[in-house]
């Protein structure tokens, strides 16, 4: 029995029982509303969930950001206008977080601004290199693809604990280093090394995802283009820059947007790995939102909502600009 049939049959067993009850109910509904309105009946559950947990929260978020106090329910919260935003932007000097009333916000913002470009560039370079290697005529392609993709399956917590175990004072990495004859380093205690490992680990964990997308893009490039290039005896580098890269551009763009959106929202791995430390060296925007809205007392939902709105706005603007640029690029 293949995996697929097993999967299908077990799903069938789980879903069969309620299905027996739903069918007469739904045909009753159909008699009631008529066939014209049936699509809305099919859409109802999903739309309810979408409105309740995606669209409505956006508007509630706006309200939170212009209201104050530590009360959770909107009707208990007094309107304070732009006070939350004023608090966030209340700075003596915007380039020196310590002069701000909410210095953590600015530190998190600064970290995110440094983290995202570095991480996205590393991610795309590594994923593209890997995809190019996997796209060649090699033995064991499936095996290697599996190896590179494997960490994507691991949960962020497992990833963080795994690397914590390797990077700790008496860990495997320091063991290797002292074996070679160098002095061990407290990797997660110094801001710079902790930051480096944050980038490294998030790239390690997610590159497989982008590799798969890029590999699919590479395999969609028609072979005869390469054949023609070989006839003209073009060098591999030339083939890459003149054929592969231009034809891969749309896929690269998708990967780029996805990578940025996910990179900006990095939270889980770093929260478990360093807790945002040492100090606040690896604290990114989402962790700030979490800290200010949920982890610290009194809970400041207004600030958290204001910060998350700014984050959402930044992502929206970024995506819009990207789409505009790509559309312009396609018209050339």
């Amino acid at each position, binding site marked *: 029995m293949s995996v697929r049939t097993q999967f299908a049959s077990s799903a069938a067993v789980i879903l069969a029982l309620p299905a027996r009850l739903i069918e007469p109910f739904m045909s009753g509904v159909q008699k009631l509303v008529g066939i014209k309105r049936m699509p809305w009946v099919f859409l109802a559950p999903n739309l309810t969930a979408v409105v309740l947990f995606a669209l409505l929260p956006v508007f*509630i978020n706006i309200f939170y950001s212009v209201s104050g106090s530590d009360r959770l329910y909107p009707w208990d919260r007094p309107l304070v206008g732009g006070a939350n935003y004023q608090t966030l932007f209340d700075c003596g000097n915007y380039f020196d977080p310590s002069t701000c009333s909410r210095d953590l916000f600015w530190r998190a913002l600064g970290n995110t601004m440094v983290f995202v470009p570095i991480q996205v560039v590393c991610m795309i370079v590594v994923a593209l290199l890997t995809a190019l290697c996997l796209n060649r005529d090699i033995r064991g392609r499936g095996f290697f693809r599996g*190896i590179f993709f*494997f960490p994507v399956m691991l949960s962020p*917590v497992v990833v963080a604990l795994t690397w914590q175990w390797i990077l700790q004072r008496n860990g495997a990495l320091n063991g290797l280093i002292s074996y070679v004859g160098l002095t061990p380093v407290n990797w997660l205690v110094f801001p710079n090394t902790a930051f480096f490992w944050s980038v490294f680990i998030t790239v390690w964990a997610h590159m497989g995802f982008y590799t*798969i997308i890029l590999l*699919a893009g590479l395999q969609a490039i028609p072979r005869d283009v390469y054949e023609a290039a070989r006839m003209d005896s073009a060098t591999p580098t030339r083939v890459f820059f003149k054929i592969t890269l231009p034809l891969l551009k749309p896929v690269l763009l998708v990967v780029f947007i996805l990578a940025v959106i996910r990179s900006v929202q990095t939270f889980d791995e770093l929260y478990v790995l360093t807790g945002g430390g040492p100090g606040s060296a690896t604290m990114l925007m989402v962790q700030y939102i979490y800290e200010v809205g949920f982890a610290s007392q009194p809970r400041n939902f207004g600030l958290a909502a204001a910060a998350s709105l700014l984050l959402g706005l930044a992502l929206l603007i970024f995506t819009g600009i990207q789409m505009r640029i790509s559309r312009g690029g396609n018209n050339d």
Partner: protein
Amino acid sequence: MTDTGLVRSGASVTDFVLRRRGRKKRDWTDWLTYLYLLIGMVIMFTPVLWVVVSSFKTPANLTEFPPTLLPYAAETIMVDGYDNPLPLFDVVTQSGETVRLAQLRRVGIQAQMVDPANPTERITVPVANATPVRQVYLAFENYTNLLEGSGGQIWRHVFNSLFITVVATIITLVMNSMAAFALSKYRFRGSNVALVSILATLMIPATVVLVPTYMIVAQLGLVGNLWGVILPTVATPTGVFLLRQYMLTIPDELIEAARMDHASEWRIFWRIILPLSSPALAVVAIFSILSRWNDFLLPLVVLTRRESYTLQLALASFQTEYGIRYEILLAMTTLTALPLAFAFIFLQRYITSGIASTGIK
């Protein structure tokens, strides 16, 4: 090309690397490719392997630096007149020969030992002259301690994680396929509005609406309840999108024929469309299972009571619970990672095709 995900054990590594591409000569780019892939394999795979190996070490073995490659444990021996097994040491005596003794206790830099063959006579040995006798030993007790320790608390977390994963996935599949069916097989006013509003949620990251989501969950009275984690995650726009794309390829004649036979719309959906969409359903299911099992931020905010923690939360907060008992933590990490690793081996092709298709379209 078949991906078994396994290297045939018959072929040696050199043979594997030295094979030629077709009938062409190997060039430098091939060497570079294999070098890159092998280095990549080491970087990607060893960390996980290291955690698995470490999870079989005894606490004493874990604190050693530099760490041992394999899990070792001190060899012990039962000596007449002593209740507990005593650790064995190889001791270099003053005359320069090596004898094997059992240690009774250590006092500063001196250790009291006995010869197992002659347990009445005590020998005092400087610690510097004694090295413990060790053998490779897999500490399965780490796993038994984890599964039986603190009243089987771990099973509670496993159940929570499983419950969330299974229930959320089933609801996701049913809800998304219903919506996809409506959006692919009916022409009605407002279908575009519905489609756009569902796809617009792609632009709303969950982290951005964390505060109001929490508020709504609290308003529904679901804080600290597993349903509070399930409900906000079930309406996945990517799932609707994938299923809709697939259902568009199913011919409408099937539906027309069923309507001729007076089948209700639900029956058409449940008996005809759903079974035909099983490949797309499988992809959506895999993604849902993966992300629900690995979810962290929403459970962290919503699940406030320890007994409602998922495996991920328990794992992340484990360190503060017992101080840090690394041997248990490593066993738990391994156990949390394993189910997905196994699932992955079987479902690799679905996952990769799913990612490739959603990423490109």
